[in-house]
């Protein structure tokens, strides 16, 4: 689709969406939506001429017309489907969205302790919750790029998770965004807003998955605010259809002494892009961002992270690993900013990639920008293949070549998987990865 054409199709979709809002268009939020769609109409999707999108050509997204989903339809979604895509059974509180709409039938939040709220964004908006309205978009600006503009324009549904001050939640909360592709490609715009109060504790799992293979477009925004001394553990699994497009933006803001740690596993998507920005705004924060990418076929998986040390005495760790097979492409861009005055910063970033095939490509750019002198910042990046000596060691002990390759590839991935916080979820991912690694290759079918 030509440039103007794809923009027109989203604007047409916005008009349909507007009509389905049933008079809600008088609310102040709707002005924000209109502004966002106008913004999208003027900027469109980023192109490879933008430094941040240099290696990720999103033209294929522009080539397909994606219609917005206007109502909930839970047909075809079963408990089995949920189990298959890595929802940890039994243990967590769970919120399920189908094509971007809250599913009452699969969500369960019985037994939530006092001081913890899981609410659908639609209902929070319906009662014009001032707190929610003020926090929405406080970390991710609608104008940041075409994708965040679209997400804001089509803002309607999502999960609002609030943990009050000094409340400790022992069981994780899992948010599952399921897509059910149909003949007509659709776009959904998931939104998650997490507020962890002062000295609270929360474990959050985000899952993005599909019921079956197909073409669709997920444009997600997650905002996480940590109060003083809050601890948030975040696990993320992206296992979309390999024909789908997944663009996700997550922004985190940390107040003094808070701790945010995230493990993101990306397996699906024809084009998948994760942008993670963490602002360490108060002294003594700790931030950990880990990621694992497995890509095969013609997949393109892109991880962009920014850790912004805006206050002194903060620590950050980053470990991103990629295993690339087939004709896939991996992109990593990790920025660490140390602002003037952010003394005693300790930042460490590591990026490791294994290329399994001759046609796989990696573009990596670890980037440091430092404006303070009393800091310790390091980054390291390696690109290579499985170690021949390790392979030899295993084969000398009677392990077949393919199995040895599997073992080593799995061990490489396990480095990240083993860091996943929620135990049942970790075990499930473990099994999922073992199934994906076959004969030293990454199996394309999930």
């Amino acid at each position, binding site marked *: 689709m030509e440039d103007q054409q794809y923009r027109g199709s989203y604007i047409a979709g916005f008009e349909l969406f507007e009509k389905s809002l049933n008079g809600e268009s008088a609310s102040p939020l709707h002005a924000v939506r209109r502004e966002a769609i106008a913004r999208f109409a003027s900027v469109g999707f980023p192109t490879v001429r933008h430094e941040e999108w240099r290696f990720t050509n999103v033209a294929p997204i522009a080539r397909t017309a994606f219609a917005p989903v206007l109502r909930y339809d839970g047909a075809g979604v079963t408990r089995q489907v949920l189990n298959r895509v890595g929802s940890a059974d039994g243990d967590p509180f769970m919120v399920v969205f189908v094509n971007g709409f809250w599913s009452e039938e699969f969500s369960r939040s019985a037994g939530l302790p006092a001081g913890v709220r899981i609410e659908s964004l639609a209902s929070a908006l319906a009662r014009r919750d001032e707190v929610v309205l003020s926090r929405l978009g406080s970390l991710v600006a609608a104008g940041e790029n075409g994708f965040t503009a679209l997400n804001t324009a089509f803002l309607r549904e999502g999960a609002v998770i609030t943990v009050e001050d000094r409340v400790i939640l022992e069981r994780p909360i899992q948010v599952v965004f399921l897509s059910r592709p149909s003949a007509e490609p659709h776009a959904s715009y998931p939104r998650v807003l997490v507020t962890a109060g002062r000295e609270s504790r929360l474990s959050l799992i985000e899952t993005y998955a599909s019921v079956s293979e197909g073409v669709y477009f997920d444009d997600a925004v997650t905002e996480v605010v940590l109060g003083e001394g809050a601890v948030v553990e975040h696990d993320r699994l992206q296992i979309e259809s390999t024909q789908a497009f997944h663009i996700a933006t997550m922004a985190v803001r940390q107040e003094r002494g808070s701790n945010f740690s995230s493990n993101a596993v990306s397996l699906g998507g024809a084009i998948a892009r994760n942008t993670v920005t963490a602002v360490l705004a108060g002294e003594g924060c700790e931030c950990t961002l880990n990621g694992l990418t497995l890509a095969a076929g013609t997949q393109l998986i892109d991880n962009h992270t920014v850790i912004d040390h805006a206050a002194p005495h903060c620590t950050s760790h980053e470990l991103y690993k990629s295993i690339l097979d087939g004709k896939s492409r991996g992109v990593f861009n990790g920025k660490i900013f140390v602002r003037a005055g952010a003394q005693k910063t300790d930042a460490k970033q590591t990026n490791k990639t294994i290329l*399994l095939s001759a046609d796989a490509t*990696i573009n*990596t*750019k*670890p980037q*440091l920008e430092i404006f303070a002198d009393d800091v310790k910042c390091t980054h390291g990046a390696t690109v290579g293949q499985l170690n021949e000596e390790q392979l030899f060691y295993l084969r000398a002990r009677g392990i077949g070549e393919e199995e040895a390759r599997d073992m080593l590839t799995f061990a490489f991935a396990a480095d990240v998987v083993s860091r996943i916080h929620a135990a049942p979820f970790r075990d499930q991912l473990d099994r999922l990865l073992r199934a994906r690694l076959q004969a030293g290759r990454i199996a394309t079918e999930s």
Partner: protein
Amino acid sequence: MSTEQNTIEELANREYKYGFVTDIEADTVPKGLSEEVIRTISMKKGEPTWMLEWRLKAFRHWLTMTEPGWPNVKYPKIDYQDIRYYSAPKSTNRPKSLEEVDPELLRTYQKLGISLEEQMHLAGVAVDAVFDSVSVATTFKEKLNELGVIFCSFSEAVREHPDLVRKYLGSVVPPTDNYFAALNSAVFTDGSFCFIPPGVRCPMELSTYFRINAAETGQFERTLIVAEEGAYVSYLEGCTAPMRDTNQLHAAVVELIALDDARIKYSTVQNWYPGDKEGKGGIYNFVTKRGKCAGVNSRISWTQVETGSAITWKYPGVILQGDNSVGEFYSVAVTNNRQQADTGTKMIHLGKNTRSTIVSKGISAGHGNNSYRGLVSVGRNAENARNFSQCDSLLLGDQCGAHTFPYIDVRNPSARVEHEASTSKIGEDQIFYCKQRGLSAEDAVNLIVNGFCKEVFRELPMEFAVEAQKLLGVSLEGSVG
């Protein structure tokens, strides 16, 4: 603390010692850039038509280009019509020997510590001295001629060895490569040309000394070095400029070509005028340097010590085309006061079993901003390519910045690429340790900074290593409080 503070101030106030101006009559062209000016330059140099055509083609392409804005440096817009593109010391004929060179010029070089005569007799380094736009003297020519080594000014090469120049000029950095390379291709005035015939190991270091003297001129020189099969050459480059409170543009192009089994070692000690403490004046050093390992087993290494210039913006790179070729980049970049540097390298691995090493040391002090920007690219057919990169930054003071932008693009699974970067400051414990052993704060910092840069300095030829260490001392010592 206070003595250290004093040391800093004392050193920060230290004057740029090469800031004098030589009063010498100059032959210049009017300010501004047009086809007319290019024709005049070409005519003054008595160039053949193909050379003029080449310039004009580059100029026409330059007109279609826009100045890039992506680097991590800030400077006011350059008015290209306000620059004088040609300035030469007035003398009727090019001197045949040093005796015929204008004594004023020789004195200038003496003041810079580059005594052409002395070097000729004692040091055994062949020097090509470039003053503003033209080369004024080249020493040791006869001796080099015996071996078939050609080392002369670029203008002379265009006249005497047109075939060689035509064959290689623009083959590594095409005139259309980038904005400043196009500008240079259109207006370049002189530079050095160096050709090492097959199997010859150049018996002495070749050196070019660049000096900007005239005001409001830009310096656009071009260096072309060709090492034939099995040849070896070590080449040094030094630069200074007078203190002026307007900025001057230096946009040079350096091309290196190494054929089978050849080796080129290129060292730079760049000490253009950095501007004063408030960042007034100084040279904009926007240079395109690139080497091509065209042959198998060839090797190119860049070593640079960048202490001068208001802004340094360059990425000496190596195209590793021949199988088993090796590229190396060793750099120390210092930014003090308001200096800015955006420098690094590009290693383009195309051939099989190619290897590259990058060691970059950035030192920021005062309000300086230092960026490392590099690219390691491994092409689809570059089997077993190997790269190791290390970028360390040292921060002296809390107003400066250090940045790293390494790009790594790998398209071959057999490649092994490693990148490491670290940022740190001189620890108080380190200084304490040295002081305890009787070293002054200043000596302690000097010792630590030199230790930090040692990996790069040991790649420099002896004479240069000494100069580089001294320069670093002048630029930095004691900047830690």
